[in-house]
């Protein structure tokens, strides 16, 4: 086929049409992992794009869209890349077989036969799967007030219980090992459906959820990985025959990337059952749409009486209209849920900030000093080793001083390697962890501190702790330190450094023997907003401990005189602010290497806490953590508080 000659000229109206449909399709895909494609292909065909070019161009917009969506949702921890790739590869085989089957049907029964096959596939799959998803969604919606966690279906529990040697794989989203003999048919069916009705996710997402036991949020996000694999394979396949109209694909992509970002954001505001509500609603509406055109194809094949041209056109028009309506309904539900969620969060934030007295020492003159130093929700991460002893002791002390709530967590690795060690070993580790947490809870109760405990499982310690911080909305996370010395970096522990680099909240690192009695605190500032944030926190915590603060701003020997004066200015400003807030403070501007001078000042002042500021979470900043902050964390003998700001 000379595809290029079949490519249409685009006018502005058509471009806008594709952008809008692309946006809505992207919105739905970002939320439920698929969808949109069943409208995009007919939408392109309604513009006189040849069917094969429409399918090819749809594929070419699908994989970059799925890639962006998968990356976005991976940031929210929704994606199981391994499961997505395993299912995606078998889906690719399903796509090829599905396309071959469709070509065979077309050769034998013509266009009407092919269309009838597609419509019947739609109706059967959507009736069975869509009906069940919607029924389950309605049930979940009714019980949503009482249950926020999804239950693993009985079928999935049976599948997870089946052990077929040499075929078992561990999947993070399932937190279980499952035989690939279950994932392969699921992937194959997903691919076949994708090649037939362009939306493999209508089997893939419910399959991952009900058959394998993945939470619906993770199933919908993992489907984006499957869609990426299928879309990339499909683009290469059609591109090999020169059938991709890259202009159409990029126009749809322009709209759909706006949509997919929004859909992905929407998933962070909704309860998991909303995925099923949206998917079930769309599936049932599309079912009606496709059922309407079945008589047209039956008539074309001569299986029923001939329909008039007007009737056939009307049925096709109404069918396409219902498809658009299905997509728009899905988009509406998502946008409404997003708006509700954002409003609820704003209200919660307002209520929270209104309930807490601002602890700013800034006054009106320094508006960047926002309320900081609030330690009402403390997360204690302890591994039960001797190195965590300091962290446990100081967490209780701090919680008592600040009337804070503690959530004590300990970590048990549960990755493939650990699983391979056997169930007994894992059980033993879990029991040890629980016993350790029980001891902390008992100590907390004796100290009159409210404390809850949790054993967290996963493959990455710092990521799990970060997730716990977010879930608990911790103001502070307290961790131990392994020691100090020449092998400082190794000793301080990669996990602690990663945590300090990545946490949103402040991090208190406590060496084993360090105790925070409130003899004196040292706060280091370079005059940046991070230093100011540290000063605010220092003021707040010094009042709790009724102690004095030494403010340090280090002047490096190579700095010109003007910079030294600037350092004095910084110190004077912060000392003034702390004093005006009722905190005893004095300042120093030592000259030398920054980390050395901070440590020397702390030692001289017999300080039991060093407070420093650090910014948020981007990668470069995490790398830069290596300099002064890391040196202080590695070498200090007392506890060190890293105050985080955005």
């Amino acid at each position, binding site marked *: 086929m000379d595809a*290029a000659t079949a490519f249409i000229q685009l006018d502005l109206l058509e471009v806008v049409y594709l952008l809008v449909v692309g946006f809505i399709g992207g919105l739905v895909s970002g939320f439920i992992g698929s969808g949109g494609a069943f409208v995009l292909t007919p939408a392109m065909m309604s513009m006189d794009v040849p069917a094969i070019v429409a399918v090819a161009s749809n594929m070419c917009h699908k994989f970059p869209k799925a*890639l962006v969506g998968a990356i976005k949702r991976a940031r929210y921890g929704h994606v199981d890349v391994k499961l997505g790739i395993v299912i995606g590869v078998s889906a690719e085989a399903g796509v090829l077989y599905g396309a071959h089957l469709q070509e065979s049907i077309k050769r034998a029964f013509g266009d009407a036969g092919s269309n009838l096959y597609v419509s019947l596939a739609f109706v059967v799959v959507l009736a069975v799967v869509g009906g069940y998803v919607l029924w389950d969604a309605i049930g979940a919606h009714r019980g949503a007030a009482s249950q926020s966690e999804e239950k693993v279906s009985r079928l999935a529990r049976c599948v997870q219980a089946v052990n077929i040697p040499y075929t078992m794989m561990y999947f993070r989203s399932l937190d279980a090992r499952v035989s690939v003999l279950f994932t392969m048919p699921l992937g194959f069916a997903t691919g076949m459906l994708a090649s037939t009705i362009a939306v493999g996710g209508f089997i893939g997402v419910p399959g991952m959820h009900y058959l394998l036991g993945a939470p619906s949020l993770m199933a919908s996000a993992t489907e984006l990985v499957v869609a990426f694999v299928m879309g990339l394979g499909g683009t290469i396949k059609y591109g090999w025959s020169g059938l991709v109209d890259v*202009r159409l694909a*990029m126009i749809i992509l322009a709209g759909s990337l706006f949509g997919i*970002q929004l859909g992905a954001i929407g998933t962070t505001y909704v309860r998991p059952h909303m995925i099923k509500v949206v998917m079930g609603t769309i599936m049932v509406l599309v079912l009606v749409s496709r059922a309407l055109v079945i008589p047209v194809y039956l008539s074309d094949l001569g299986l029923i009486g001939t329909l008039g041209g007007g009737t056939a056109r009307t049925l096709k028009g109404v069918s396409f209209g219902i498809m658009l309506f299905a997509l728009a309904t899905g988009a509406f539900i998502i946008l409404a849920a997003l708006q509700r969620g954002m409003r609820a969060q704003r209200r919660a934030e307002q209520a929270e900030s209104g309930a807490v007295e601002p602890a700013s020492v800034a006054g009106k003159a320094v508006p960047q000093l926002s309320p900081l130093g609030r330690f009402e929700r403390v997360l204690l991460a302890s591994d039960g080793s001797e190195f965590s002893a300091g962290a446990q002791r100081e967490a209780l002390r701090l919680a008592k001083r600040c009337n804070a709530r503690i959530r004590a967590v300990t970590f048990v690795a549960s990755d493939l390697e650990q699983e391979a060690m056997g169930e007994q070993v894992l059980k033993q580790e879990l029991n040890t962890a629980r016993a350790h947490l029980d001891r902390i809870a008992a100590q907390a109760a004796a100290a009159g501190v409210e404390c809850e405990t949790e054993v967290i499982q996963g493959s990455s310690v710092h990521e799990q702790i970060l997730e716990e911080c977010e879930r608990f*909305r911790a103001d502070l996370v307290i961790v131990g330190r392994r020691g100090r010395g020449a092998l400082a970096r190794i000793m301080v522990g990669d996990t602690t450094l990663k945590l300090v680099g990545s946490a949103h909240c402040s991090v208190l690192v406590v060496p084993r023997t360090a105790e925070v009695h409130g003899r004196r605190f040292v706060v280091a500032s370079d005059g940046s907003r991070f230093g100011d944030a540290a000063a605010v926190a220092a003021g707040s915590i010094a009042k709790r401990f009724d102690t004095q603060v030494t403010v340090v701003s280090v002047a490096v020997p190579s700095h010109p005189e003007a910079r030294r004066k600037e350092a004095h200015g910084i110190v004077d400003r912060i000392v003034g602010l702390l004093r005006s807030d009722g905190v005893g403070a004095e300042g120093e501007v030592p000259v030398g290497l920054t980390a050395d001078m901070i440590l020397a000042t702390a030692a001289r002042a017999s300080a039991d806490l060093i407070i420093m500021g650090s910014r948020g979470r981007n990668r470069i900043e995490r790398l830069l953590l290596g300099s002064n902050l890391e040196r202080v964390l590695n070498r200090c003998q007392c506890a060190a508080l890293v105050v985080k700001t955005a």
Partner: protein
Amino acid sequence: MTPFMADGDERKIVKTLALGFLSLLLYAALFLNEESVLQLSTLGGWYALVPVAIAFVFSVAHGAFTGHFWDVLGVKARK
């Protein structure tokens, strides 16, 4: 001293505008060279990689832009 939030917001907006401009440039380049791009991408065989490469480049630039776009408008994921 510049207030912290205003400073951060300004940086975000500049970054978003820069990414939007880059995205616009890419689309302009695609449609100004529409014929040659179509010709190249429809040659078949290994030329199938042309639309794949275009899609990757657009997804990086435009994907980053759209992410920042909603962020600047205040539509952010739940904390």
